[in-house]
Structures are given as C-alpha cells and as structure tokens.
C-alpha cells in the first residue's frame, strides 16, 4: 500500500505514467530513476518516486515533476541516462548536468501559469493505481457527504446552480438531465459514463481515466445517488487499454473499500458499476448507439425522442454523461455550485479541458475557464506554430466541428461562440494548422473519417458522405468544376438536415466551415474559378 500519502516525504519525484509519456519511454525512465535512487543510497522515505498521471505537457514526455523544499521543478524529455543526474539535482540543482538543464521546464511558462486546476486537480498529483492516495487527496469525501448529509434533490440543486453543461459535445445542461431522469416514474434506472472519446486529436477523457480514475467513480456514484440509480456502466473505447486497466483496478479497489457495492459507507445506498469495452466504432459515442453497444448489439443509433433519460438501457430511464462532466461533479459539491458558476461566461460556466495538438509548440492538456480566447489557448499557452510562422486555422470539435481562421482567434471559447462560427465545442480536441495545410484536404480528411465511421443505417450519411468525399477529391486534385461547387453546397445541406444521428448531421461541418472561411481555396481548385457562384 502506498505510504506516500500518509507521511509525505521531504522530496519526491512524480513521474507521468499516462499513455502520452509511456509512448515516449516513461516506464524505462521511472525504472532508471528507482535504480539511481537506490544506487545513491536514498530510501523511499527520503526520496519518493511516485507514478502519477498526466502532467499536461505531453508533447515533451516523459515528464517528471520534482517536489522539494524549494518548490516544484518540471523536467521534460528526460533520457533514462540522465536518471542519476536527476536524482542528484533533487538535492542540489546547481550541480545539474547540461542535458538536464536543457530538460528543465519553467513553471512560470504560460503553458502552466495560465491554466486552472479544477477537473484536472488530481491529474499528475495522485497515484492513479492507489485508492489510498486518492482518498488522502480527498476523493470520495463528497460522495460520503452526499450520502450522509444531502438529499438527492439537494445534490441536483447544486449541479443545477453550477450551470455545468455536458462536456461530451452537445452541451446539454447537466442538472436538467439529472432532473429528467430522477423524475421518471418509479422503477429501475441506470447511469452510464460515456468514455468512448473517438474524436481524433482528443485525449482529455483518456487523461482523466488514466490519471485520476477514482474522481470519475466518485462523480458517477454521486450522480447515481442523485437520480436514484443502482447500476452503472462505463463504456470505454478499446483503443485505450491503459485507461481500461486502471479503471478496472479502481473499481476493484472501490468495491473492496466499501465505496461501491451494497450498503455504501454504512448507508442503504447501493451501486454496482461495470466496465464495458468498445470494439472500434466512433459512432458508439453517440448516446443511443452506445446503449445498443452496451447491450451487445451493433452500434446503430435510433431516432430521438424518446431520449435515453426517458427510455435507455433495457427501456429504463438512463443518465448518460461524459467523463469530464462526471469528473467535475465532486469539486462542484465541495466548493458549491455558485463557486463553479462564478467561472466562465454567461452561458458556459466553469472550466473546460482541451487537448492541444497539431502544428503547435506545446502539445498537451489544457484546462482553462470557459470564455478564454482561442488566441490565448493556441498562441500564448500553446506557443504558436513551432517554426514561428503564423497559425492558419484552429480546428475544434473534431469531425463534427470546423476550422476557425486565424483572424477570428480572439473569439472566446464557449458553446455559443463556437457554434456561431460554424464550428462547435465538441469534446475538446483542438488541432492547430499552419500555413501549409490545405483546407480542401482537411475537409476531405474529415469526410473520409465520416465515410469510415458511418454506421450505414440512414441513406444521407451512408451514401451522402461517400459522394461528398468524392466531390472533395475533385477539389483536392484540382479538377473540380463550378457545378461541383453547387453540388457540394447542396449535398452538405441535405446530409446535415436529414441524417438520423449527430454523426451524419455534423459530418458536413468541416466542409461548410472551410467553404465559409477559405472559399478561395476551393475556387482556386475549380477549372473555371470565375464561374463558381458566390453566396
């Protein structure tokens, strides 16, 4: 069992062991650090080496945070050969080798300094595989408080006051959804956590699952209490093996600690949670498809209404929320709904986690208050394009979103502003594009994704996306005609308006937004550009 939580050692090294850093060699580094510590004759009491989750600057992995009397220092891209030097530097930084000095990251960098820690407060702090560490950090204390001191109505009241909106993309008010489920006629109810995170370029939910799984379980359990559910599922995509492993471990630990199961914490509240692993289908992130998949079926969406809140798993009222939505709940209860609502904008409260990637210097996880401008996220926090050339566009919302051109970077990031620009918040992926990126190619990239991921149930999406991808191909290959432009426009509108689920309804968005802001690139690809009709 982890002792680090009880008696905090004077100095510790927190090593990121989440997927991003693992792919950059964090396991070797951690092993080398342990060996170097032992070789230097330090005990774990003097110098703890603690595996933690994401330290946010994933692009510079493997990351290590060094806590000592003088504060915290961060190191990025530390080669295992520098392990000895790093151990030495925990005592006396002045002796650090040149390589190590080069790996040192300034904590005053805007990347760190401008971030908030709300949903991610435990990420990089707690050991994701230790419930003791999580409990010492305060996790599960809000669940206990809810069970002993608050009625389900009072819990829902706080969530409503917080103004929290769904972080899975739609932005539906969370408190309202909880009320809808809670107020259904008596009978069984389910809670489901959507951890299918399929947008390419999005890794926020994965980071939470890998870094702080107990926080998610706490949020899920509080939700179950608030809506009267006694069964829950977490649906995780199979492409996240580490997240699945850690989540399973966390569930087992929570069951053993009496925080899940029957008679939780001495109350009459009971909750069973199961993990369901996907099998590679983006569309299963759509809530009705996800429910089908949990029931062992093809992930085919069905028309709504009825919404899952009315009729979901096995026909029972089912609450579905995203990972980040649930993970925000414990803090909201701890600090109060009003506290949460004091951050953000009028319509979008609190903070949002973004995954920043693409042509940007600082790649990683970013948590900022809603309403922060895109510019401060990608230019100040992200540090702009690595070679210093201007940003051309920022893509938000993945295959359902759009490309926002550089001249609109001063837009605040909130649900409404992004929608107005023809993009959307989506789950929080933000991909920066430099000057060399061609917009018709970007549009084709996303359309191919939609072709691949369409479930095939309804004709506009099944056949329409294929036609759209072929039309875009003509623009990419510069053999389009003005008639193609008209067809592209018309078909985009048709697919958007008539598809059955969100996948088809938003598949045209990347085309429509690039047509809106970069129309000249499409026109230049026409054989007779002058004839392309202008809107």
């Amino acid at each position: 069992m982890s002792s680090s939580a009880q008696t905090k050692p004077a100095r510790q090294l927190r090593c990121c062991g989440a997927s991003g850093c693992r792919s950059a060699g964090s396991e070797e580094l951690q092993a080398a650090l342990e060996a170097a510590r032992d070789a230097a004759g330090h005990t774990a009491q003097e110098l703890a080496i603690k595996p933690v989750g994401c330290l946010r600057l994933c692009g510079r992995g493997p990351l290590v945070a060094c806590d000592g009397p003088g504060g915290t220092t961060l190191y990025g891209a530390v080669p295992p050969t520098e392990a000895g030097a790093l151990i030495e530097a925990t005592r006396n930084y002045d002796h650090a080798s040149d390589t190590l000095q080069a790996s040192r990251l300034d904590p005053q960098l805007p990347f760190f300094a401008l971030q908030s820690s709300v949903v991610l407060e435990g990420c990089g702090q707690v050991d994701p595989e230790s419930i003791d560490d999580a409990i010492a950090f305060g996790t599960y204390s809000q669940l206990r408080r809810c069970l002993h001191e608050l009625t389900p109505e009072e819990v829902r009241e706080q969530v409503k006051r917080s103004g929290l909106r769904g972080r899975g993309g739609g932005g539906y008010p969370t408190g309202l959804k909880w009320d809808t489920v809670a107020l259904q006629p008596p009978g069984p109810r389910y809670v489901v956590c959507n951890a299918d995170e399929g947008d390419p370029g999005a890794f926020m939910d994965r980071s939470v699952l890998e870094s702080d799984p107990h926080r998610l379980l706490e949020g899920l359990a509080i939700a179950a209490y608030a809506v009267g559910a006694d069964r829950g599922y977490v649906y995780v995509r199979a492409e996240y093996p580490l997240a699945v492993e850690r989540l399973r471990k966390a569930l087992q630990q929570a069951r053993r600690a009496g925080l899940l199961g029957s008679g939780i914490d001495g109350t009459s509240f009971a909750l069973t949670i199961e993990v369901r692993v996907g099998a590679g289908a983006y569309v299963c992130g759509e809530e009705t498809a996800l429910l089908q998949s949990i029931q062992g079926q093809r992930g085919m969406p069905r028309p709504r209404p009825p919404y899952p809140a009315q009729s979901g798993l096995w026909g029972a009222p089912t609450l579905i929320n995203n990972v980040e939505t649930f993970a925000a709940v414990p803090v909201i209860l701890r600090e109060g709904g009003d506290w949460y609502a004091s951050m953000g904008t009028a319509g979008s409260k609190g903070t949002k986690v973004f995954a920043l990637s693409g042509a940007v210097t600082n790649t990683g996880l970013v948590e900022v208050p809603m309403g922060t401008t895109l510019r401060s996220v990608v230019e100040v926090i992200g540090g702009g394009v690595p070679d210093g050339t201007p940003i051309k566009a920022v893509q938000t919302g993945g295959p359902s979103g759009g490309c926002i051109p550089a001249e609109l970077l001063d837009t605040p990031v909130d649900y409404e502003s992004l929608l107005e620009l023809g993009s959307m918040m989506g789950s929080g992926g933000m991909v920066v594009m430099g000057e060399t990126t061609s917009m018709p190619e970007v549009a084709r990239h996303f359309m191919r994704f939609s072709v691949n991921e369409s479930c095939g149930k309804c004709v506009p999406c099944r056949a329409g996306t294929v036609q759209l991808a072929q039309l875009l191909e003509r623009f990419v290959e510069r053999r389009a005609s003005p008639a193609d432009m008209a067809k592209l426009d018309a078909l985009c509108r048709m697919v958007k308006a008539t598809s059955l689920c969100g996948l088809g309804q938003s598949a045209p968005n990347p085309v429509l937004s690039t047509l809106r802001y970069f129309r000249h690139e499409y026109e230049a690809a026409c054989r007779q550009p002058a004839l392309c009709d202008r809107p």
Partner: protein
Amino acid sequence: MSVITLSVNGKDVAIPEGGSLLEATRAAGVEIPLLCHLDGLEPVGACRLCLVEVEGSNRLMPACTTAASEGMAIHTHTHQLLDYRRMAVELFFAEGNHICAFCVANGNCELQNVAVQVGMDHSRFPYQYPQRVVDASHPLFAIDHNRCILCTRCVRVCDEIEGAHVWDVGSRGSHCHIVAGLDQPWGEVDACTNCGKCVDVCPTGAIFHKEDTTAEKLRHSDRPALLKAARDEHVWRNQ
C-alpha cells in the same frame, strides 16, 4: 381512448393518442413517400423520406417514428423537403445497381414509385457501381444484392413476425449488406422456414420468387400488419 388534435399542412386532424405523425398525415389525406416503414413492423426511421417540418423545431422529424402530440403543426411538402427527398432518392439509385429494364419488380417497385412521386428522373450524383452478388442458393427464392436499398424490412419481418431471424445487417457504412446466417448462402441457413414473408415485403426486386421473371414480381406488403393484428388483437382481416 383519448384523442389528440394537430394540423397537417394547415388542416386540422384528430388521431388517437399515441399515434405517429404518419397516422396524422394519413388522417389528413396527405401522402408522403415511405421506403423503410411498413405497417406492422417496428419503425426504424432509416430512409429519411418521410421527414416533415414541425413548427417551432429546427429539426426535421421522421413521420414514421415520431409520436404526434397535441397542438403540433407539421408541413409535409415544403420546397426544402421536396428538394431533400429528391436528393435522397438520387442517392439510393447511385449507391446500388438498379437496371430496371431487367428487374422482376419493374413496374411494381416501391423505389421506382417513390422516384416518380418526388420527380426524380436522373441522378446528379455519379453511380458507384458497387460489386454486389446474387444469391440463388435458396430452393424457392433468391436475393439480388444489387437491388437492395437496406430498408431492413426483410430483417424485421423475419425477426418480428416470423420469429426466424434469418437476416441481419453485416458490416457498416457503405459496406453494409444484408446477411443470412453467418454471411452464408441463404439456402444453407437452417433457420429459414421458407415462409416467403421477406419476399412479400421487399420494396424492390432484391428478394424475389425464383419463378418470377422480368416485371412479374407481386408484393404482399400488407401482410405484416394483418398478421400482427391477428396475433396481438385477435382480429382477422385477411379473409
């Protein structure tokens, strides 16, 4: 049973509570194109031809799956809807291989009828000429995948009415296709009772009686509703 009232293209109608928008359009004497829907089978909302506009909502709603509610006002034939419907039919023709002149269903094909209904005479979208097969392994019937529009009526009738569940949909997206058993030749699937219901309901010439030749296919698409009524309500109208 209580009744709700709503308006269809400006005309007020009353239908039993729990009815769908489709029932409301029928009560108003308005015809909208349908391909996936068939009375007696669970509606799935897949072909999107029956979409209607609902006042006060910015989303189009499929009439076949949407429950009607008191005071709704719907529009079934706006310019926009006609436009979208025609495009949907174009997409259907372009994604399969429909050589009507040689088809058993020529002249008695619901896809053809819908094309006439929405005024589609050619597809603006290039034909995809997919590689598809004909399975004639069944002693009585055959399925020509070239003509399948993936309405899943065969899947539903075989599951919901016959209870055999011979058919399902395989793969996904544009690779979707109807499968018998483990994607086997139909004739090898023991579960088939040879009842012929899938032949009765297939809207195109995709599933047909082997003895039928060009333009000879007869359809009995009213049977699922009759059988369901007999089973659920014990009323027989199939004399």
